[in-house]
């Protein structure tokens, strides 16, 4: 039994070892600059980052794309998740609670490829035809929404589908920490003459806020590593653009796209190094999130993710 438990450590060590081992080539060639260097295209004089043919690799556009799409996803998902959690724990009539919780669980169980399919065939046309033009018109002044992308793919589409995917995690964990707040706290606030929202705000959310932050960070962790859905809608273009409506890429997406057709050992090594970075970052993010959630629920959160 101990051996089985120790296998967890073995797995982590194994992953780390293999990833480090197989990314040696690019590590030795570029070092840490791999993650931020910029090359220049000799013909167009435009910045260039990913040139497998000439073996010039920079992970910058992928890091950028991952961060942009993930934070966009958080921006959309966090208010909705907390709203859902508040509704389910404090406002929902009893008979609805079970079915709604079941639906949330279903959302969490849908495979990423199906999200990707639906996003590509249903969501992207919707965005392209109805949402993106509106965004470009009304929010174009911010510089983040230039509608010159006729496909509807891009960071924004990726952010939206990611938001849908991380919603269930953030929401159910938020519900858990909200339920962990003792009933006596709610009563104390009500007895002072508070409205229901004031009771939720002061008696529940305030007490649970550390755990909620943990839930959000956990959602971030999932968004960072999400592969299939993102790769189908982000456009897979290794460039950096400020506009959220332009094509982009992400760390997980480039690995999924290029790995089986990598042109050289250096190319493979570059992709594996990106995978290594993804591994390290998600480990750290998830560790922080776990600590926060654990601090509030005091023990083992009952979750099968």
């Amino acid at each position, binding site marked *: 039994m101990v051996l089985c438990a120790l296998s967890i450590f073995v797995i982590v060590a194994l992953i780390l070892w293999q990833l480090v081992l197989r990314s040696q080539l690019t590590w030795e060639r570029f070092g840490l600059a791999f993650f931020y260097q910029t090359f220049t295209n000799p013909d167009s004089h435009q910045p260039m980052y990913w040139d497998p043919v000439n073996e010039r690799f920079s992970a910058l556009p992928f890091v950028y794309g991952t961060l942009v799409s993930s934070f966009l996803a958080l921006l959309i998902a966090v208010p909705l998740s907390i709203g859902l959690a508040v509704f389910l724990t404090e406002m929902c009539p009893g008979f609805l609670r079970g079915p709604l919780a079941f639906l949330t669980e279903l959302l969490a169980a849908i495979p990423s490829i199906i999200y990707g399919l639906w996003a590509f065939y249903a969501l992207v046309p919707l965005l392209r035809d109805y949402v993106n033009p509106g965004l470009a018109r009304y929010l174009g002044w911010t510089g983040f929404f230039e509608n010159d992308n006729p496909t509807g793919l891009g960071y924004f589409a990726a952010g939206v589908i990611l938001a849908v995917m991380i919603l269930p995690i953030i929401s159910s964990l938020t519900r858990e920490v909200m339920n962990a707040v003792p009933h*006596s706290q709610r009563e104390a606030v009500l007895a002072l003459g508070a409205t229901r929202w004031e009771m939720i705000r002061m008696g529940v959310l305030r007490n649970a806020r550390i755990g909620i932050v943990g839930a959000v960070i956990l959602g971030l962790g999932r968004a960072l590593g999400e592969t299939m859905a993102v790769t189908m809608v982000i456009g897979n273009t290794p460039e950096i653009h400020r506009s959220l409506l332009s094509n982009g890429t992400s760390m997980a997406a480039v690995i999924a796209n290029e790995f089986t057709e990598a042109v050289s050992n250096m190319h493979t090594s570059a992709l594996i190094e990106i995978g290594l970075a993804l591994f390290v970052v998600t480990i750290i993010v998830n560790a922080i999130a776990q600590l926060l959630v654990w601090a509030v629920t005091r023990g083992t959160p009952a979750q099968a993710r």
Partner: protein
Amino acid sequence: MGVGIEVKDLNAWYGTNHTLQDINLHIPANHATALIGPSGCGKSTFVRCLNRMHETNPIARVTGLVRIGELDIYNDAKPVQIRRRVGMVFQRPNPFPTMSIYDNVASGLKLNGFRNRRVLDEVVERSLRDSALWDEVKDDLRKKSGASLSGGQQQRLCIARALAVDPEVLLMDEPASALDPVSTSKIEDLIFELKSQYTIVIVTHNMQQAARVAEKTGFFLNGRMVEFDSTHKIFTNPSDKRTEDYITGRFG
């Protein structure tokens, strides 16, 4: 200043459980009234009907009249308004752990929109003095959290929090039952001091406590109010045999 409470034909249910049956009584202003009775007799439910906390339970139901001062609290007012005028202290102290002592006491005021620092400072100090906690915490008002105090101090903090919104009635549901004897006697002294300013209703398991602090006492049994009279009479010469049996310890 406190006000009197009139209760007429009060009935309460938890689902199908008829927890209170035909309660009628008049609680005098600026006095302390004790409610005694064995576990499950309905005294806590009764008190929770006085500030409409009973109905926060989805399967709870109430009929009858409760008039606090001039106000019919079920027909002429909303729960949020009532609860500001009728304060409550619970059996287990429940200060807000994420707030400082100052913020705990000021929480009720802030809910009602008071932001002026000077007003808040003044009310916080007055409330803490009234609950005999000021001297112990005056240097740590903003530094210590509400949960870092001892049990007895936490309960006095909860009393201060309730007093800060200037209620007319103070309901206390077994306020000292989770505390040690020293803290208990401090709370009892407090009730003595406070009753001249507020109307106090205290639920207690402890008959000696009722005898010490309350002018009037009501004895509850199985959801009914068996006897309601001056404390002295209840404890020395009760009219009803059931009261006498309880007092002398034959049950409960």
